[in-house]
């Protein structure tokens, strides 16, 4: 298994390079929480660092926060507490960025966590409230909307 990064042989590390050229040196054990990076390490193409053009430095830092915690800790309650705090974000844009980063880097746990957070934001809300929460425009034509309302009413339950 090729290990990139500094010549320090004590713990193999890999360098991740964000889209805005920030460098993060990360132990392999942590970085391989991302299946994408794990495949790259296994294929031996991590010399000189792994460029991640889809992830900014700010988001990558947060992702690594998650990976660090989940690679180290084993206590279920501790991880649960961490996860809850991790997604307690005021800024929706960051949440969506994390979803996309988790998808791109193929970190299953983080993807499920951030997606469930979005689902939880929808719980109990009316249509108007959902649109307001996510700042969505109603792009239905009146006929389309009427059709969906009709279907909701009598086509199917559940």
């Amino acid at each position: 298994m090729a290990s990139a990064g500094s010549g320090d042989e004590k713990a193999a590390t890999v360098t991740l390079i964000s889209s805005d050229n920030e460098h993060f040196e990360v132990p392999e054990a942590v970085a391989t929480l991302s299946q994408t990076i794990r495949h790259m390490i296994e294929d031996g193409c991590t010399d000189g660092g792994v460029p991640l053009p889809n992830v900014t430095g700010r988001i990558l830092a947060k992702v690594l926060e998650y990976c660090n915690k989940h690679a180290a800790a084993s206590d279920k309650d501790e991880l649960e507490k961490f996860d809850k705090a991790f997604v307690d974000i005021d800024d929706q844009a960051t949440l969506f960025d994390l979803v996309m980063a988790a998808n791109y880097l193929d970190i299953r746990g983080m993807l499920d966590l951030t997606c469930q957070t979005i689902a939880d934001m929808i719980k109990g809300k009316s249509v108007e409230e959902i649109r307001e929460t996510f700042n969505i425009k109603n792009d239905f034509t009146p006929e389309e909307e009427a059709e969906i309302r009709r279907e909701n009413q009598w086509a199917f339950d559940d």
Partner: protein
Amino acid sequence: MSHDGPGSSAGAGAGVDALSLDLLAHALAGVRDPRDRKSCRLASRAFARAEAASRRAARPLRREALPRVLRAFPALAALDLSACAGLDDASLAAALLPAPGGAELGVRRVRLARASGVGWRGLEALVGACPRLEAVDLSHCVAAGDREMAALAAAAGLRELVMDKCLGVTDVGLAKVAVGCPGLRRLSVKWCREISDIGIELLAKKCPDLRSIDISYLKVSNESLRSLSTLKKLEDIAMVGCLFIDDDGLQMLSAGNSLQSIDVSRCHHVTSQGLALLIDSQRFIQKINAGHSLHEIETCFLSKLSTIGETLTVLRLDGLEIFASNLQAIADSCKNLAEIGLSKCNGVTDDGIASLVVNCSYLRTIDVTCCHLLTNDALAAIAENCRMVECLRLESCPFINEKGLERIGTLCSNLKEIDLTDCRINDEALQHLTSCSELQILKLGLCSSISDKGLVYIGSNCAKLVELDLYRCSAITDEGLAALVRGCKKIRMLNLRYCTQITDAGLKHLSTLEELTNLEMRCLVRITGIGITSIAVGCPSLIELDLKRCYSVDDAGLWALSRYSQNLRQLTISYCQVTGLGLCHLLGTLRCLQDVKMVHLSWVSIEGFEIALRASCGRLKKLKLLGGLRSVLSPELLQMLQACGCRVRWLDKPLVYKG
């Protein structure tokens, strides 16, 4: 995992639009509540597409919707067709036809309970179109027989099959399924009385993975239990009302040791000894239901309970004679009990309950229906010791009154269901229950001292209430209903039978209950079409409506139902002032209506009945009519009804006005 292209997460302002369809669908997959999902469908086109891509379960209400439901939701795994009005083989097969270039269906679970229009042709089409089919529920399709079983036997991956009340099924059909579906894990053949020991023997040989079996009410003998004892993985067996099984059979069952749940209720030849022997060999039993059997509780059984004291969580001994000493013995052995059933048990006293709950503090469900000796002291003991109690059944305990509920209200904040039918309680009881904010089901039938004041208490804090029974609480008026609906907006089932003071104004209040599905208003003599109209307009989810003896309801009310209550399935309009025209319109337009009771419609002529019933042909499944009509309705009509699978009950009752 999908990799979308360089989706710009370039820092500022990534809105939800930045998420690809797959990612948004992944997020919406976590939205479980059906109402929330419907809201998502209306938010935007992207949300509607993502909702469709992530929807895993659907329950179509009309057969016209079926083709679309099957194609629009690629992730669909569970399909519930039990409410699909008018479903028959032709429409099912047509809907299942593969679209050109379309993917195969991933449906795994299909529910066809009471779908009496579906037969072997439809089932063949279903099995053919759904290669991943794992679970089928065909219960109460009374015409289903061996031909239908043959169709299901082609689903090689079938794991769960429920065939309760499929009266036509015999050993031959069961054999076909056993051979064709060797991976079967759960099977229920309740009431399929043509099945015998031979069928069960073959089943046990061919399906070694069986974990759960229900042979209730079959005429099988101990030999079936001998066959079933060979199943190494059998965990759960139900044999309610198996009159040909006795202690010898239970002894044969003892050959295995994997049982976790056993139901021998109503088995008149099973005694304490047989059950004790069975428990001896099974170390992991969690649930025992021996209601209405055992003749009497003997020490041999009670002492054996200590061997399973750690694992036993459910014990039902309904209908047996039980004394305080017995309850003490149970309490000493089984500290982990979560549910105890003592309904109709003679001999249960306050002392017995006290000794039980002192040791069994984890009890969540306590059923002491008709335990006539119990007083408020028993309730105090329960409240003190079982703080986590969720379900209390206290029907017909005449010495329990409102004082008994004081401690329950303060200490049992987890209470979700309480049945106080026929108890002598007044509004003060409801005042105590206000603090139970988790309350979902409240039954107050025959509690004639309950008045509007009580409803004010309930409305003030029990926001999760879903079911309320006020049968014969005749002091209730419109004001009480107003207070109720202000606080309890989630009510789905409401029984107001004989609450005769209620008028149209009260119904106007009820019309704000958007989730109302079942409404019983028998003998509400003051309500008219105006009240019915407000209900019809305001409660779009209405499925069942009982208007028997609402003498002032006329065509206008029924017209509103025809127009707005499109999901109505069950309707009782006996004694209402409806004419032939109104009836015809009603039966003609309500496409989901399946069950109608219309006895003593004095304003409908014979022609009126003829036209109205023809208008609904093909949809009605159950009909109740005055006996006298049998001889005057045309034979063609009666034949047509029968051919369409409609069962008619003829009632010979004299015309008497009440209320």
